[in-house]
């Protein structure tokens, strides 16, 4: 009770707290759902072959007709159609995208829309484990024609970084995400929203995410706090997409392959195998006999599936120790040990 009074005192939104009144049949949840559904759209684009869905979801972020959605193959077409909550069909073009956040912003090709939209400026809710939430999306394309998107209910199970299991999950988003207990991330659900039961915007439902090792699926949403600024900047035309800049990531990392004299093949695929392209003459790598075309398989006993993972592993090794690599050369597995130079810790790398 004290807490509730305090919540009021602090000026926090009452709607964020799941009140017991919410539990019983008659509740404001119906009007919440209606209000959110008015701000949702269905996106139809490329796909439709080989079980690739050709539809996804989006949410309206400006009355003039900007739609935030998930960045996916669906948008990879000239003929992008958006079906508004009222059933109107409008063509759209991709204004800009931020692949690292799995975010794209669409611009609807119509005048004087004046749509019900999310005011991102006013959306600053956060949630933790136990928060009761609603998920809105056009999963499985159940809602065809002018039908409203589907609504699911659930609870936030965790707010945690998605990237903790790199390699197991095929995701480009590596920040913090809301993990929910409801099956929100279904085909076509990406670009939908996760809200509190009071209808405050918490995040954008991400793509389908499967653990390649256990064949289990994770249901998550990218917090709106992460997306807010990029969306606003894209709309204002001021956004410069973040490049997945290896230099930038490596700058933060403690060690880079080049420090050992290793040059990897260009990282062009999602999982480019960690082949050594060149070995710098006179380097540590050359000293232990590493050669071009060696495939790095293990770093300190951990399996490495790609150039990216190799770089990440190097970034975390301790200074002053020994780096154990196992490479495949032809049919043989070759173990090598490289001395790691001493290096002072840099801020922000001690995760």
């Amino acid at each position, binding site marked *: *009770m004290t807490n509730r009074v305090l919540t009021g005192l602090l000026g926090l939104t009452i709607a964020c707290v799941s009140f*017991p009144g919410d539990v019983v049949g008659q509740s404001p949840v119906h009007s919440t759902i209606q209000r959110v559904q008015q701000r949702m759209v269905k996106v139809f684009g490329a796909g439709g072959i080989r*079980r690739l869905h050709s539809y996804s979801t989006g949410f309206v972020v400006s009355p003039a007709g900007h739609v935030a959605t998930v960045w996916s193959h669906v948008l990879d077409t000239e003929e992008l159609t958006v079906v508004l909550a009222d059933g109107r069909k409008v063509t759209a073009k991709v204004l800009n995208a931020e692949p690292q956040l799995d975010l794209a912003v669409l611009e609807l090709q119509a005048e004087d829309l004046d749509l019900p939209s999310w005011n991102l400026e006013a959306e600053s809710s956060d*949630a933790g484990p136990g928060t009761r939430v609603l998920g809105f999306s056009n999963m499985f394309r*159940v809602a065809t024609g002018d*039908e409203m998107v589907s609504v699911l209910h659930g609870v936030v199970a965790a707010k945690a970084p998605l990237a903790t299991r790199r390699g197991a999950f095929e995701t480009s988003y590596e920040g913090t995400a809301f993990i929910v207990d409801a099956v929100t991330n279904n085909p076509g659900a990406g670009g939908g929203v996760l809200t*509190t039961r009071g209808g405050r915007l918490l995040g954008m439902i991400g793509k389908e995410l499967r653990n390649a090792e256990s064949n289990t699926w994770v249901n998550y949403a990218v917090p709106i706090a992460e997306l807010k600024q990029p969306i606003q900047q894209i709309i204002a035309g001021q956004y410069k997409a973040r490049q997945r800049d290896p230099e930038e990531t490596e700058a933060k990392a403690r060690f880079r392959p080049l420090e050992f004299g290793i040059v990897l093949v260009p990282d062009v695929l999602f999982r480019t195998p960690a082949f050594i392209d060149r070995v710098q003459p006179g380097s540590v790598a050359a000293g232990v006999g590493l050669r071009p075309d060696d495939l790095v398989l293990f770093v300190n006993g951990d399996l490495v599936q790609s150039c990216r993972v190799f770089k990440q592993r190097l970034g975390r090794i301790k200074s002053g120790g020994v780096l154990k690599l196992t490479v495949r050369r032809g049919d043989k597995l070759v173990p090598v040990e490289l001395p790691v130079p001493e290096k002072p810790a840099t801020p922000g790398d001690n995760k």
Partner: protein
Amino acid sequence: MRLLERQCHGLVWLCMAATMTLAVLPQTGWAVDPAVLAAEAKRIGVASRLAPSVVAIFSRGGQGGGSGVLISPDGYALTNFHVTRGAGTFMKCGLNNGQLYDAVIVGIDPTGDVALVKLLGRDDFPHAVLGDSDTLRVGDWTFAMGNPFLLATDFQPTVTYGIVSGVHRYQYPAGTILEYTDCIQVDTSINPGNSGGPLFSAAGQLVGINGRGSFEKRGRVNSGAGYAISINQIKLFMDHLRSGRVVDHATLGATVTTREDGAVVVDGILDDSEAFRRGLREGDEIVSFGKRPVRSVNQFKNILGIYPKGWKLPLVFRRDQSRTETLLRLRGLHRASELAGPSKPKPKPGRPGQPKRPARSKTPVAKPPEKYKHLHIKKSGFANYYFNQQEQNRTLAGMSRLGDFAGASGAWVLAGKTAAGETYQLTVAETGVGLSWKQKAYFQELKSAEPLDEPKGSGGLLYAMHMWRTFLAQRDKGFGEFYYLGSEPLDGVGDRVDVVISELGNVRCRWYFDRKEARLLGFDSQRQEDVDECEVRFSGDNQSSGRHWPRTILVRSAGKVLASFGVESVTIRAETAK
């Protein structure tokens, strides 16, 4: 000062805690709000009140099964067609009292995926109360109950709880004739074995029958999208199912598409359909159908999909500035062979599949229980003809009250005035039917001639009178086919009436009976397929030599009244060869 500082600290700490756990329940000593406990107690109460009506269905061989729900004290229970298919005519049904009951198939709706079965051995079965699924709103809580994964070896149903995710959903056929129209989408967990089980509203009313889910790549387990057939659709089919028939859904005889401007327009129409005869053409805009506005193709399909074949529905369509309102009888969606044929699902990827029971091994179907053998009668077009006989007996029970018409041999001569004041005389004899009216004479010869449209535009009134006589005097013995159809609103808009079908040659009649008193209200006689019917409606009572005749006979066809014949005198005359 120190104290204040400590208070400040506390406040800051509390602020932080509140900010970090924004939406977590107030943490006052882990005490649970009484309202939460009350809601929980209510939920538990509803679930335990409902559990006795939930049925675990097994094939008699004991392999595989599904779920169902009792809807009447005498044991009628709803389930999915895909649960009963292959389970044979007799099944075993478990209730939460731990008892196993024999059950027999009653009627099936392969298109709508519904089956009606009857549990045997009691007349006081616990049963669910049917709700109104149209009042469901997105966000409403629902209970799904049943036997997912066939876990309940003691027949105690599994309860799952979730919200309505969408209403009036249209789900395309999944490689079969089966389609889910106007259905309810829930995030309530629906898994294999839940099929045929009840979806209850939070208040505990039966609002749907769970039957499908969107599964796709996550294996055949719940993925947040389950579908239930709305109970309102099933209500429309209920008496049809009780008839023991294999029932069919309907088509308009026209297809529609969405125009650029969003209007739903006719893009194809059969020229032998009633819709065509009433003036519907390609390009016409559908305004409303079944009194519901049509704004999308799916809405049109949703409306059409919930009605049985043969119902009359009001249709409003627009061409340029002119608007037409008409009442149409819906055609059957399938041929009898399509309904009877195998409809094993071949789920297409990306489409919802059925949460079917686990595969059964091929063991021979167990023999029916000796005690209940008589409760199943095999007949083509019927799931169980026994129940049709029961319904015929019930519906025709009032006929004997009208008097002995079989004994009225000779010509029946009805005379009087029409509502417009014209005198007429109608003679219905065994060899022919004659009418003199408005200085004209009409005649239908019966021995050799085909049924005629006499008088012209009446839909064949004279032949219809012959059918009436046959029905009164001989009942089922006078026809080739004769069965109870189910119930429908009289003339599409009136009260629900029981319908009996008779067929003689190409002539098909629909006989309408009041449901309270089993009184014959009238009939429609159709000379052959795809022509306008002659609609005959009786009212009033006119006693003559121990027989009850109607006081007025209203005759209509193609939406127009021919005349209302007042019956002033009835005489039975010895028949003389003409």
